[in-house]
């Protein structure tokens, strides 16, 4: 086998995407669906097959030169290393299950070819990010996922709100891309290369101040894609898309791209303590912000969206605390259980006849198939971080990393992490109780749940629950497999006494249970949603949209209006037309002189003569002067 075969991992989804785009509507539906699934599943299988390439220092594959000008020489090159391999496997694996689920979910959709094509394209773009060897290729995928999410969020484009949500997602993430772009330009200017590994290798040579700025730029770039403060407003609206899209984009892949980016540039970022603190701070703030918002949400998917934001915040904290392995660990487990939650939410909505509002659900434990409840619960306990679930371990390792970080500020972040965990547990069980407990409060007729929407949940639920096994901490007798796999890339080695670890784990478990009890106490029986200012404030995501509108969109509109009306219309065109008008007026004035009367013409003659005479007299006087 040859290293350039690695491209097959990418090209397979791409091929299926293009194929479905071109021929999807002309071929039998089954064919399209199979193509779509094959594209992803094939990539999954290929990843497994090529796993060996990732070991050691990984493998590079170069396809062809993309851009070549002056000192710049960028190839289409892939880098399949130990950081990329698990991510690839996760992306393709989860995506395969989501694709299967989508086949069932989109059974009644006519425009399925576009959907599957975009979905495949999305996977392709995500894989490009994961496997990119240089920044430009990464950027290709980076923008690619942006576009695909745009297309998928706005998939039901006939409702303008959906299209607008897509546009919003694209635009907000593009704001983040600006920072990534600037970082890319700067890195190239500094190092003369765009290769990620080369940049990391030269990172130590860059002056510390610049490193801080660069890291912050990368952080902001990551914030855009990962929906972290301050670029988080798009994620909640993005729930307008079909549920498989939410599962794919907002659980497993796109939102984690930011984390992945920071992990990729960890050697650079970790050089600057300021940047690390900033990353942690952003993560912590987002985590608690999103958790607070989730507590007041009424749309099931929005609850999950905010929870995603919050969990990604944990991942940022992990990076900030120096543990790449911890971040990736949480990334993986989160991908599993969040995908389960989203897909189950899709089923719930299906059962509720398209109802999204959790306050109009209830009693689904009895009403729907029992397995749905168990699957959802599996996801929920992972999210809430009940002990021994995958979520528990991954979150715990992050909290440990925060606790053990030498810088005392991190204790504050650790505290935020703990509080967030409490909130998480609370809103997760709030969701469970509102949806499954009590009586059915909705009005919609349930749709049938196709088989394909049910069984892809099981493997994911199991992976979520058992996710802890991948990186079982040492004090529980685990081998920290993931940490060892990453080796040098894993970041800081967490060194803490087992007592501390036990203490932290116990605290986390207690917190989760407390959250559960609180939710149980509040929502065991149905409670109508609160309508006070605080809940409205939280419901609207701390008025973030209004703030953005106030400080960005309105000024932008005003500037646009100024440019168009104020400058172009009034100033430039106005002065041009004024000039033209003046000329015409001059002309009209001159035509008035042409009266058609001979006397006028003759007096013009005489006046001309007089002027001539006057001129000559003047000349002679001057001439006489000297």
């Amino acid at each position, binding site marked *: 086998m040859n290293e350039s075969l690695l491209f097959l991992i990418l090209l397979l989804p791409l091929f299926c995407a293009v194929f479905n785009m071109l021929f999807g509507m002309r071929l039998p539906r089954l064919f399209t669906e199979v193509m779509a699934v094959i594209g992803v599943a094939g990539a999954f299988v290929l990843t497994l097959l090529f796993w060996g390439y990732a070991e050691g220092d990984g493998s590079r594959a170069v396809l062809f030169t993309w851009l070549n000008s002056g000192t710049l020489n960028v190839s289409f090159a892939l880098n399949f290393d130990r950081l990329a391999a698990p991510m690839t496997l996760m992306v393709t694996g989860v995506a395969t299950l989501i694709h299967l689920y989508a086949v069932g979910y989109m059974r009644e959709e006519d425009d399925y070819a576009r959907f599957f094509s975009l979905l495949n394209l999305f996977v392709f773009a995500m894989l490009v990010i994961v496997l990119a060897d240089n920044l430009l290729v990464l950027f290709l995928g980076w923008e690619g996922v942006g576009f695909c999410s745009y297309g998928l969020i706005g998939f039901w484009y006939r409702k303008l709100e959906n299209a607008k949500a897509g546009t919003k997602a694209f635009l907000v993430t593009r704001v983040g891309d600006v920072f990534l772009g600037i970082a890319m330009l700067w890195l190239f200017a500094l190092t003369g290369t765009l290769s990620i590994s080369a940049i990391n290798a030269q990172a130590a040579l860059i002056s510390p101040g610049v490193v801080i700025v660069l890291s912050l730029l990368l952080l902001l770039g990551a914030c855009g894609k990962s929906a972290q403060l301050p670029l988080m407003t798009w994620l909640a609206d993005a729930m307008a898309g079909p549920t498989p899209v939410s599962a794919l984009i907002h659980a497993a892949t796109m939102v984690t791209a930011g984390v992945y980016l920071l992990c990729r540039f960890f050697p650079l970022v970790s050089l600057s303590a300021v940047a690390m603190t900033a990353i942690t701070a952003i993560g912590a703030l987002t985590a608690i912000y999103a958790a607070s918002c989730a507590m007041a949400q009424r749309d099931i998917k929005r609850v999950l969206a905010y929870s995603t934001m919050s969990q990604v915040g944990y991942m940022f904290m992990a990076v900030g605390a120096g543990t790449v392995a911890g971040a990736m660990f949480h990334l993986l487990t989160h991908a599993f259980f969040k995908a389960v939650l989203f897909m189950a939410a899709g089923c719930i909505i299906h059962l509720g006849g398209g109802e999204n509002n959790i306050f109009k659900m209830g009693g689904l434990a009895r009403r729907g198939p029992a397995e749905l409840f168990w699957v959802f619960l599996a996801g929920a306990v992972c999210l809430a971080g009940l002990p021994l679930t995958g979520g528990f371990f991954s979150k715990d390792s992050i909290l440990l990393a925060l606790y053990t970080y030498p810088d005392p500020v991190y204790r504050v972040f650790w505290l935020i992490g703990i509080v967030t965990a409490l909130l998480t547990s609370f809103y997760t069980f709030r969701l469970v109780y509102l949806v499954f407990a009590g009586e059915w409060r909705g009005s919609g007729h349930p749709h049938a749940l196709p088989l394909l929407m049910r069984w892809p949940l099981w493997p994911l639920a199991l992976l979520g629950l058992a996710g802890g096994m991948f990186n079982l901490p040492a004090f529980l007798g685990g081998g920290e497999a993931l940490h060892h796999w990453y080796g040098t890339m894993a970041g800081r080695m967490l060194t803490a006494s087992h007592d501390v670890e036990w203490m932290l784990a116990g605290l986390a478990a207690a917190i989760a249970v407390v959250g559960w009890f609180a939710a149980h106490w509040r929502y065991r029986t149905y409670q109508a949603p609160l309508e006070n200012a605080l809940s409205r404030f939280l419901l609207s995501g701390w008025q973030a949209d209004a703030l953005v509108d106030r400080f960005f969109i309105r000024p932008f509109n005003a500037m646009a209006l100024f440019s168009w009306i104020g400058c172009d219309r009034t100033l430039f065109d106005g002065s041009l037309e004024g000039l033209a008008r003046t*000329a*015409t007026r*001059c*002309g*009209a004035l*001159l*035509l008035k*002189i*042409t009266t*058609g009367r*001979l006397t*006028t*013409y*003759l007096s*013009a*003659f005489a*006046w*001309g*003569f007089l002027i*001539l*005479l006057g*001129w*000559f007299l003047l*000349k*002679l006087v001057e*001439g006489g002067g000297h």
Partner: protein
Amino acid sequence: MSLPDLLALLPILILVFGGTVILMAGAWYREPLPLIAGGIVTALLGAVAAGLVQPPVVEIAGLFSAGAYARFFTILWSLLAAAGLMAAARYIIENSIGAGEYVSLVLYAAAGMALLSSATHLLALFLALETFTLAFYILIACNRRCTLAAEAGIKYLLMSAVSTGFLAFGIALIYASSGTLSLPEAVIKLSAATGELHAWGLLGWGMVLIAVGFKISLVPFHLWTPDVYQGTPAPVGGLLATGSKGAVVAVLVGMLAVSGPVWHGLTDLLWLLAALTMLVGAFSALGQKNLKRLLAYSSVTHMGTLLVGLLCQTSAGLTATTFYLVIYVITSLGAFVIIASLADERGEPMEFDQWRGLGYLHPVRCGVLALLLLSLAGLPATAGFMAKFVIFEAALQSGYLGLVLIGVLSSVISFAFYLRVTMLLFEPDESVCRWHTGTASEHAVIAVCTSAVLLLGLFPGILFDLIGRILP
């Protein structure tokens, strides 16, 4: 008057006596066509004679030059007369104008222009100028069916008479001041007296300038131009716009070419006149709704540009002026002949409303008209651009940057109104109606003018070489 003198005068003699013979014949023989044909042949003969007969003397009776420069313009005006007659044939017949009289007047006018272009003596200048002016009085007004023509006639006549007064007094003052009537000598005497400014000479030249300014319509002596152009039937208008102006410019160029740079006292004034003329002509044309008036104002602008060339007084400037003049004559004539060729019993199409959409009914002539107008505006690849270019080049060489910028401004404005017309021609319009299809002779003139404009636009070298050789 010796034989060599007569030989040198041969082209003029052919024109004048040919004209007289046709006049006589017209008295007996009322059929117009042969008379017109005879006139055309005479004019062409005159041109041929001027081209082929090498005169044995350089100067005729101390009044006229017989040099290559004079002969060149004799050829040009003879050809112009031939073209004017070809374009006028239908006009003469349809309006039952006396063919003999008309033809002889045109030939006579051509002779006058030719004499003016070659004048080297103030008396000759005066007489030649009066000669064709007189012919034009009659030609303008001779169509008794057209009321506008009568009005144009009286306007031209009275204004012209006043300008004659100025010219005569001016020449008289020059004579009083310099004691000679010979043009080069008078010029040199004026320029020699740089130490003490000669008031009489200056005033004399100023008055001559007024008369010249009237003839070539410099601001503020231009006001007659639009009215007279509008009222004059196009076949005559073509001659009036080209020949009567061209001959005057030609004599000035000839004079300057012989005497070298003069006019120290007048430079500032001429600068002002040129600037004013270019601008006023351009601005006035902006609001026009009548094609012939528009052409009149455009000719005002063009004369301003010509004045820039004259002002340079360098050989480059004079070459440029001559080139410009020839191009202007050809282009302008073409435009007028096109108007003439469209004329029918309703008269000539003049108002813009009559032109709207005409390009689709008469594509060739309207297309050519558009081309000629753009050449007048100075679009590259047409002769008009080369003309403007060489004038600007000469002016910049002489340091008249300000004038050139004003010229640029007026060019831009000119484009505005020329483009409006061309746009109008090809603007789809349902209500447009057909005009006359034109005769072969008219088409021939148009074709010649057009091909000259294109040819000289792409290969102006031909004319440059010629001018370089003939300029004294």
